[in-house]
């Protein structure tokens, strides 16, 4: 059962040494942090590592949290920087994976085996599939806007860019998501025929 205390109250309690309060804070935000990490990492193991790292970093610098913005905005900015660092590191370790097509291949190879028929694929499945095929930045901006319920200003703080740039990026990300969704649905219809 999750705590009814606000984020700020839980932070205050954590700062007085109550680790259980921080566990409540983790439980409250873990789903979104994990989802956001998954948008960058593209696989659950790496996403878990990024998300875990974020909560540890947030704990370490909790006393530095200024409370001028929401805790979630501050936490998501940690997720963004941690994920970007992770991606950069991964790019060095492996061959370039920044090509958009690679993401599509990765997604197709990992998900095709567990799908038996078009009947059990809901439209939300296709949407999730399409979002995983987007570039990390696009996927993150869509996730922050729709799932994190962040305003354009809050997203601009999280990503460290101007609100107007966020608006433009969001527009482009939505367009790309729409294209991917349409492409996937068409592809599926062709397969059925």
């Amino acid at each position, binding site marked *: 059962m999750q705590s009814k205390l606000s984020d700020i109250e839980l932070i205050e309690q954590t*700062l007085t040494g109550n680790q259980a309060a921080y*566990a409540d804070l983790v439980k409250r935000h873990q789903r979104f942090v994990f989802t956001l990490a998954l948008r960058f990492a593209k696989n659950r193991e790496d996403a878990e590592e990024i998300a*875990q790292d974020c909560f*540890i970093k947030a704990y*370490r610098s909790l006393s530095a949290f200024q409370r001028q913005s929401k805790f979630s905005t501050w936490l998501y900015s940690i997720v963004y920087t941690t994920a970007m660092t992770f991606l950069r590191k991964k790019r060095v370790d492996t061959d370039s994976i920044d090509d958009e097509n690679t993401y599509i291949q990765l997604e197709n190879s990992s998900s095709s085996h567990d799908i038996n028929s078009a009947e059990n694929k809901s439209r939300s499945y296709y*949407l999730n599939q399409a979002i995983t095929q987007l570039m990390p930045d696009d996927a993150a901006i869509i996730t922050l806007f*729709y799932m994190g319920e962040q305003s354009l200003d809050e997203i601009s703080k999280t990503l460290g860019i101007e609100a107007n740039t966020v608006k433009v990026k969001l527009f482009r990300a939505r367009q790309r998501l729409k294209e991917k969704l349409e492409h996937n649905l068409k592809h599926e219809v062709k397969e059925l025929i």
Partner: protein
Amino acid sequence: MNTIEEKLWNYIDGTCSEEERKAIDILIAQDEVYRRKYEELLALNQEFSKMELDEPPMAFTYNVMEAIRAEHAQQPLKASINKRIIKVISGFFIVSIALMLIMVISSVHTGGTANISVHLPDSLRLPDIKNYLSKPVLEGFLFFDIVLGLFLFDAWLRRKSVSKQV
């Protein structure tokens, strides 16, 4: 220049101006192309809003808390400094200084008949404090005090504004 889609997304998000909103209202009502596009984007927007969050592994919270415990990450927190310990230490010093002062005061003869003469060794040369307390030194000391005062005042104001926000 904004495309139809861009204008409609701004309209759906509520980020366009009042004038633009009114203009788009009219276009949606009168222009079939606009209306269809609006309905398409609105449906898409609703679909995007229904996207579900992914679930992390069951032991996620436990793993995070274990990692925190393992790293002794609680050290940087201000919570790790027990205020009671600081109070006990400062209390000890205050009591010690007070006792010393009482002892010194009680050992002083107040009768006025005592003839106290202190003889210092000839080789001992005490520094003349007046030499060190020159004008630049005093000004520097004063400047440092002012800066320190402003810094503490700023910290106090910050704490006050934070507690107000809470």
